Each structure stands twice: as structure tokens, then as C-alpha cells.
């Protein structure tokens, strides 16, 4: 305990160790937040969901905080929903079962950029007669643009941006530009002000009703933006944290502890055991680990747990054994081991109670520096398309960005967010590990 306290004090005197600790703490907080705010099953569902769930988010939108640095503000998504805004819908009975439903959404638009898309979603309840809906758009300068007259089914979606008749009416501009453009300006510029979306519906039954949702998709979204399937990248970034940390930690524990134990056993027993372990280590040097992992991932199972387990299994006989072996051979000659022998301690007792504790100072830094390599291994496999089929991870975000040409199309945020997280994690752990190495190995302390 005492050496731990002194070492801890030493550790905090290194700024890089402090920085590493802060990063790790931040990651742990992020992981806990992810787990508290959203259960894993929900994250998996969200990440695997299609457009049905991700209806109100734009496609490939950059993070919203970019507006802080921009002179020309880009829009964020605005959603107007009659089920959420009860005051926006008025119902007037016309007698004879006929009802007029009038929906008015005041659309405040003060951005400099045009929206990305504009869509209307309707749900209608009726028995037999399908309701009718007329939609139009009122601009701040008093123009009235008809958006269409439709007979509704139970649920409809009108993608106004893909409506060619509407765009012809808007002088061949797509709806998201034509509806918001200043008609006087030579090049499309936004006319700022309060627009009005008006939908007038007629239902023919007493119990019938219409609900309308208008989505003006922005060019920016949330803290991390969205991907090509309208998913909020933040879901994967958040839940990727506990997955990465757990993976790195468990795999690193497995790899270091098993390697050290085997080295200890080999060094203690010597003879053919030692020789065998040495030879296996040499075979291991030649085993192409990553190709084997890829092969297993492709042909059998690409679950992260299986692949990581296999990796730990394959790295048991890694080069680290030689380092530990050299250490154990020194320790073996120490007088206190002889003391233990003289009171006839069992072999296992000597290995576990006398030898292993002595190498912990070497083991701990190695263990800490190993964690990021496992975090990156997950990303590596994901970038090869062998990511876990279910879990949302940082590597999978990167992979999807890569395969959808994010860099080529200028969606830099999509690549940057997961890579910065990966880099910060890697740096945090390895800065701490490096410093631990210097603190625990007195030979390096001065350097």
C-alpha cells in the first residue's frame, strides 16, 4: 500500500500522466452516461433502425455546433407536429359528419442557408371515406404557394423536395430552395421571416381525424451530425465508449495476465516446460494473427466477443513472454525464494505468491499501454467490414464513413468524430502507461 501511495504521488507530478488520467476519467464518465441514458438494447435498435425511426433527422448533416464558427448560419431541423402542438390544429364541424380541419404552423426561418429537404407526413383515421388535404405555403412577403391537394391514406409522406410539379411551379428550383428564396434576388438567397404552412383538410366521418407533421430538415444536426441513413452519430459515439473501454480492459487483462503466468511457470519449472514455451513463442511469431482473425471473422463468426477472445488466445504466447521470462529468471535466484523453498512451499505457491507479485510493476504499465491497442483492433476489424453485426461502435462509424466516401464527399465530421475519440482514448491510456513505465522502472526515471 505504501509503495502505491508514493508512486501515485510521483505519478501526479508528471503532467502527461495527469492528462492521461483526466482523459480516462472523461471516457469513463461518458461511458456511464451512455449506459444510464440509454439501455444497450435500445442503442442497438436505434442503430439498426431504418428511416421509419429516423424520420425527423436530416441525411449527412454536420454537427450543429459548427454554427458557432460560421458567419452564415446554417439551419437545424425544425419539426412541427400537430400531436405535439395542440394549438396548431383547429377543427370545425360543417354538419352532416363533415368536418374541416385546419392546421397552421408558423415557420420561423432566420438562417442564411436553405434547408436540406422539406417533407410533410400525415396520419389519418377514418373508416371508409378517405379525407382530403390541401396544403399551401405563405411567405413573409405575402405570396401563397400551393403545395398540393391530396386524398389521404392512413399514413402518407410527401417529400416536397422530390415533387417535380412543385419545383416547376417554383421556377425549376427544388422545394427547399424555391419555398424559402427571395424572388427579387438574382441568385437564390434566403428570405428571412415567419413563413406559414397551412393545411386544410376535410374529413367525412365523425370519428375521422388528420394529424400533420412538417419537417424542415436542416443542414446541421445535434452534437455529432447524422450519417447517410439519417441516424444520429452520437448514439454510436456514446455507446461506443463503454464497448471500447470494456473490450480494451478485458482483452488487456486477459492478454497480460495469461502471458505473465505462462512466463512464470516456464521460468520456475525450467527444463522441457520452459523449452516448449520458448518454441511455441517462436511459432507464434510466424502466425499471421490479423489474417487469421479476418479469416475467422469472414468464415465463421464476427461477433466482437468471439473475435476478441480469439485474439487474446492467439496473443498468449506473444513476444512479451521473453521479457517476463528474463525477469522471472532473475527473481528465481532471489534469496527470499530460497526461503520459501526451505519451508517447503509448493511450486504453485511460489509462482503465485512470491514471483508474480514481483513483476506487477512491469505488468501494470504494459497492461495500460495494451488497452488502446485492443480498442484500435476493434476499429481495425470494423474498418475491414468485420465489425460486430449488432453493436454500435466507433470503428463501425468509421467504416460506414469510409465505404460511403465521407472524405471524398466532404463529410469530414463523420470521419473526425470517431477518429478523434479513438485517438484521445489511445493517447490517454498510452500517456498514462508511458509515465507508469517511467515511474515503476527506476532505470528510466531520470530519462
Amino acid at each position, binding site marked *: 500500500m505504501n509503495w502505491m501511495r508514493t508512486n501515485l504521488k510521483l505519478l501526479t507530478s508528471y503532467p502527461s500522466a495527469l492528462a492521461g488520467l483526466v482523459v480516462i476519467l472523461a471516457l469513463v464518465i461518458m461511458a456511464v452516461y451512455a449506459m444510464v441514458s440509454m439501455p444497450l438494447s435500445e442503442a442497438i435498435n436505434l442503430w439498426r433502425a431504418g428511416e421509419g425511426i429516423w424520420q425527423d433527422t436530416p441525411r449527412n448533416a454536420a454537427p450543429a455546433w459548427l454554427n458557432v464558427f460560421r458567419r452564415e448560419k446554417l439551419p437545424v431541423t425544425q419539426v412541427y407536429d400537430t400531436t405535439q402542438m395542440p394549438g396548431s390544429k383547429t377543427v370545425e364541424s360543417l354538419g352532416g359528419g363533415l368536418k374541416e380541419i385546419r392546421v397552421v404552423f408558423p415557420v420561423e426561418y432566420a438562417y442564411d442557408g436553405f434547408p436540406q429537404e422539406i417533407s410533410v407526413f400525415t396520419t389519418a383515421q377514418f373508416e371508409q371515406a378517405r379525407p382530403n388535404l390541401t396544403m399551401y405555403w405563405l411567405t413573409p412577403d405575402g405570396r401563397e404557394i400551393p403545395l398540393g391537394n391530396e386524398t389521404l391514406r392512413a399514413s402518407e409522406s410527401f417529400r416536397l423536395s422530390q415533387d417535380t410539379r412543385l419545383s416547376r411551379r417554383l421556377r425549376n428550383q427544388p422545394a427547399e430552395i424555391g419555398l424559402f428564396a427571395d424572388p427579387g434576388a438574382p441568385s437564390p438567397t434566403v428570405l428571412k421571416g415567419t413563413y406559414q404552412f397551412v393545411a386544410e383538410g376535410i374529413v367525412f366521418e365523425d370519428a375521422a381525424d388528420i394529424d400533420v407533421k412538417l419537417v424542415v430538415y436542416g443542414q446541421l444536426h445535434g452534437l455529432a451530425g447524422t450519417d447517410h441513413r439519417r441516424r444520429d452519430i452520437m448514439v454510436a459515439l456514446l455507446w461506443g465508449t463503454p464497448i471500447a473501454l470494456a473490450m480494451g480492459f478485458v482483452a488487456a487483462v486477459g492478454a497480460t495476465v495469461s502471458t505473465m503466468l505462462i512466463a512464470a511457470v516456464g521460468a520456475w519449472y525450467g527444463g522441457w516446460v520452459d523449452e516448449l514455451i520458448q518454441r511455441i513463442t517462436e511459432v507464434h511469431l510466424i502466425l499471421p494473427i490479423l489474417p487469421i482473425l479476418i479469416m475467422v471473422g469472414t468464415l465463421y463468426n464476427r461477433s466482437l466477443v468471439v473475435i476478441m477472445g480469439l485474439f487474446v488466445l492467439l496473443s498468449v504466447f506473444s513476444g512479451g513472454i521473453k521479457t517476463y521470462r528474463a525477469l522471472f529468471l532473475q527473481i528465481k535466484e532471489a534469496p527470499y525464494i530460497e526461503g520459501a523453498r526451505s519451508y517447503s512451499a509448493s511450486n504453485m505457491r511460489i509462482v503465485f505468491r512470491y514471483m508474480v507479485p514481483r513483476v506487477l510493476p512491469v505488468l501494470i504499465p504494459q497492461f495500460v499501454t495494451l488497452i488502446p491497442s485492443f480498442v484500435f483492433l476493434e476499429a481495425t476489424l470494423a474498418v*475491414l467490414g468485420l465489425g460486430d453485426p449488432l453493436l454500435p461502435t466507433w470503428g463501425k462509424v468509421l467504416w460506414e464513413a469510409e465505404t460511403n466516401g465521407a472524405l471524398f464527399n466532404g463529410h469530414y465530421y463523420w470521419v473526425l468524430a470517431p*477518429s478523434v475519440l479513438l485517438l484521445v482514448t489511445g493517447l490517454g491510456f498510452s500517456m498514462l502507461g508511458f509515465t507508469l513505465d517511467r515511474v515503476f522502472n527506476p532505470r528510466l526515471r531520470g530519462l
Partner: protein
Amino acid sequence: MAVSEAPSMQSPSTAGAPAGSAVWRIVRFTLTRFVALFITTVIGVYLTILIANMGGHVDEIRRATIREGLAMYVGMAQEYAHLTPVERRQLVEQLAEVEYKRLGLDQPFIVRSFRYLGNALILNLGRAEQMTSDSGSSQVRNIIMERLAPTLLLTATSFLLLFFVSIFAALALSRRYGSFLDRLSVALAPLSAAPSWFFGIFLILIFAAVLQWLPFGGMVDAPPPPTRLAYFLSLLKHLVLPVGAIVLSSIFIGIYSWRTFFLIYSSEDYVDMARAKGLPSGAIERRYILRPSMPYIVTSFALSLITLWGGSIILERVFNWPGLGRLFYQATQVFDTPIIVGNTIIYAYLLAITVFVLDFVYALVDPRVKVGSEGRSA
């Protein structure tokens, strides 16, 4: 340690006299290493085959392919046109049995695994299921050989760059211990936690996407330039980013650890002695610091080259570099098992060759091997 005697091994009087026996010792060392490595390679390849066949998956695929081919043949052939579907299926099964026998698929796996091993060792890797080489061959060996050159070019270039730059930078820094650059190298060392492809993505982002100075990927322009010089220049242009990524990913840790290593070595007594004699610092570095630490440097670089082979798989995918790694990736995309297994075996061979070559270099630089006292001790 024998290291402290190392400088005296250098002097011509001791090395010159028993020249013949020194050569013999190196040859003997090389031969024993070769035999040992060959055995290790055989075991390594055998393990690869075992893993590749885990659960008999590969055989299932092969059986299905055979049956499918036969079903096609029976369905198309005129002489079987009169058969009923049931008879036809029986015929396919019969023919398949014969075919299994011909290919040895009826034998237990243990027997077959040794046959696979033999085939793999002589690089008889079979035929690809879907992919072909650019020249049209579907022999896995031809496909792999075609892709080997770009991988070797990429790996060798970055390895040589990495080796020399990090050693000389480390030497220079160990001379300026505590300077700003020195402290910078210590601070940058943790960056090496990230693998090369990761730096590759950043390099593409900066130099290809934003600045548009260098291409996103590939090996030469399309269409390839006609003249040899233009081809070379185009190759060079495409080589900058992937090599840069590899170098970036390992250079900081390399410089850091060698600088530390050299610092430890330069505090040895015989270095102080050499300084006291008034030798120029260049000579001290070459003879008294670099020379005795050379075996360790070589071993450590052997290990780094081994990680380089693995890392190049993803790097090649990120940069669309037409080498073994991208081949591997493409094969996994279309589930071309013979290529996946063959490629894994090739990687095992590359690793074995790497270890062997570096063992040989090790024998050349380690004076202990030259005098033949203790063969391999690293």
C-alpha cells in the same frame, strides 16, 4: 554481459586471423536457424490450416461447389436429358462421391490436413472461386504473386525509411538530452498507440480531401502514364501518403525507445573511457554506442516489421493499394475461401522470411555469434 567486450571485437587483429572459421560459424548458425525456422513455419502453416478448417467449413464449401458444378453439368448435358429429376439428383450424388474420392474429401480430416499442408508448403494453393488475377488466371498462386510486388514495395520503402530515420533521429536526440526536440519526442511517443491506417485516414483528410495535393489512393494514375519516368513519378506521388502513414504510426515510439536505449548505453564506463581518450563524438557513437546496441536494434525492428505486415492489410484497403492486403479484403467481401486461406499462408511465409533475414542480419552484427560462444540469445 558480452556486450561490453564488443568494441574490441572490432579491431582487425582479432577478426582477421580466424576469418575462415568465422564464416563457417555464420554458415552453421544460418543453417541451424533455417532448419529451426522451417520447422516453425511448418507448424505455423499447419495451425493456420487447422483454424481455417475449423468445423470443416472449408470442406463444406468445397463439397457444395463440386455438387453445384456437377448439377450444372448434368442439367446441361444432352445425354442426361431423358432422366427424371430424381434420377438426375442420384446421378449428381454418385458423380459427387467419385469427385470427393478423387480430391480426397472422403478421407478423415487429419489425413487431409497433412495433404493441405504439403500443398500449402509448395505454394500449391488451389483455384480461386470467383476472383481472377489481372492476367486472367484463377490460380490463387498467380493472383497472390501479382499482388505481392506492390505490398513489398510499400512495406520495404516504409521500413527502410523508418529504420534509418528513427535511428539517426534517436542518436541526434540522445546527444541533445533535455532539449526541446528531445522533450517533444517524449511527448509524441504515445501517438504510436494508433495504427497506420488511422494516420492514413487523417493524411487523406488533410492532403487529399482538403488540400488536394495528393491522390486519395491507388498506385498509379488511371490510365497509367506511358513513359517510364512519368510512371515512376506517378508511383512516387501515390506512395507518399501510405508510406507517410506507416512512418508516422511507428516513428515516434521508435525514436523515443532508441533515444532512451542510447542514453542508457552512453552512460557505460567504456563510453566515458572513450571520451576521456578524446575520440570525436561521431566515432564514439558509431563504435561504442551503435555497434554494441545493434543486435537489440535489429531484433526490435524485426518485431516492428512483423507488425508492419499485419498493419498493411488495412492500410492497403484505406489507400486502395493493389497489394496483398487489399486482395485479402476483396476476398473476404466475396467469401473467396481459397484466396483467404492462401493469403494467410503467404503472410505466414512472409513473416518466416522476415524472421530469417533478420536473424541473418543479426548474425552479421552480433559479435557473440561471430565468435560462436552463445548462438541465439535475444
